[in-house]
C-alpha cells in the first residue's frame, strides 16, 4: 500500500477538496486499493516529507522540499488537472 499525503496551510480547507478529488480519481482509475490517503497541515509535515510515497500540496512549501512535492492547486482551479494526476501516477508507480 502506497501512502499519499495531502497538505495545505491549515489542514482543514483546501487539502480536503484536493483529497476528495484524488480519491474520486483513484476510484475511477481503479487504483483505490493501492493508495492510503492522509491529510495534514504543511507545518506538521515539512520534516516528514520522506515518510510518504508522495506529497501533494495546495500551499507554498519550503525550497528544500519543493522538488519532492506535487503542486495540487490545479485540482482547485480545474485548470490542467491531468498534469497533477500524471505526477501522482508516476510518483506512486500506479499501474
Amino acid at each position, binding site marked *: 500500500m502506497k501512502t499519499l499525503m495531502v497538505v*495545505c*496551510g*491549515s*489542514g*482543514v*480547507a*483546501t*487539502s*480536503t*477538496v484536493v*483529497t*476528495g*478529488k484524488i480519491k474520486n480519481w483513484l476510484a475511477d482509475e481503479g487504483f483505490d486499493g493501492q493508495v492510503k490517503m492522509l*491529510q495534514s497541515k*504543511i507545518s506538521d509535515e515539512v520534516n516528514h516529507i520522506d515518510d510518504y510515497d508522495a506529497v501533494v*500540496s*495546495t*500551499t*507554498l512549501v519550503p525550497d528544500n522540499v519543493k522538488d519532492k512535492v506535487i*503542486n*495540487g*492547486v490545479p485540482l*482547485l*482551479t*480545474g*485548470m490542467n488537472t491531468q498534469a497533477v494526476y500524471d505526477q501522482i501516477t508516476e510518483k506512486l508507480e500506479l499501474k
Partner: protein
Amino acid sequence: MYFDKDVILFDQSMTDQTTALTTLADALQKAGVVKPSFKEGILSREKQFPTGLLAPSMGVAIPHTDAVHVIKPQIGFLQLREPVHFNQMGDNADVSAKLIFMLALNDPDLQLAMLQRLMGLFQNDDLMKKLTTISTTADFKDIMKQAEID
C-alpha cells in the same frame, strides 16, 4: 447555514489586502461565529500561505485559518470595487482578486461537499460575473443556491 449571519459585503473600496481581510474578519467576529483570535490567524496565515486563486474568469481569494479560531461554520463574502492584490496558493503567482470568500470552517468532513461546490462555482464564468455586479444579499444567496452552497 454558511451565509445565515449575512456577512455579505458589496462594492467595497479596499486599499490593500490587509484592509480587506481585516474588514471581513471583524464582520465575522461581530456576527459571533469566530473568536477574537481569528483575525490574527487569518492575517498571519495569508502572509505565510497565500490563498489567492486564478479562476478562469477572474482572481479570487479564499482566506482561512485554523479550526481552533472558529465557533460556528460560516463564509464571509466581499465584493471589491477595485481588485486587491493577493498571491496564489501553491505558486505565489500574482492574483488580482475581485471577490473574497473568507472561510470560517472547523470540520473538514462536513465541509468537503461545500468546498468542492465553491471550486465549481469559481469555474462557472457566468455565475462569477454575476457575483461581481450584484448588490443585494437576496441576489447573492440566489447565486449561492444555484451553486448549491448554502
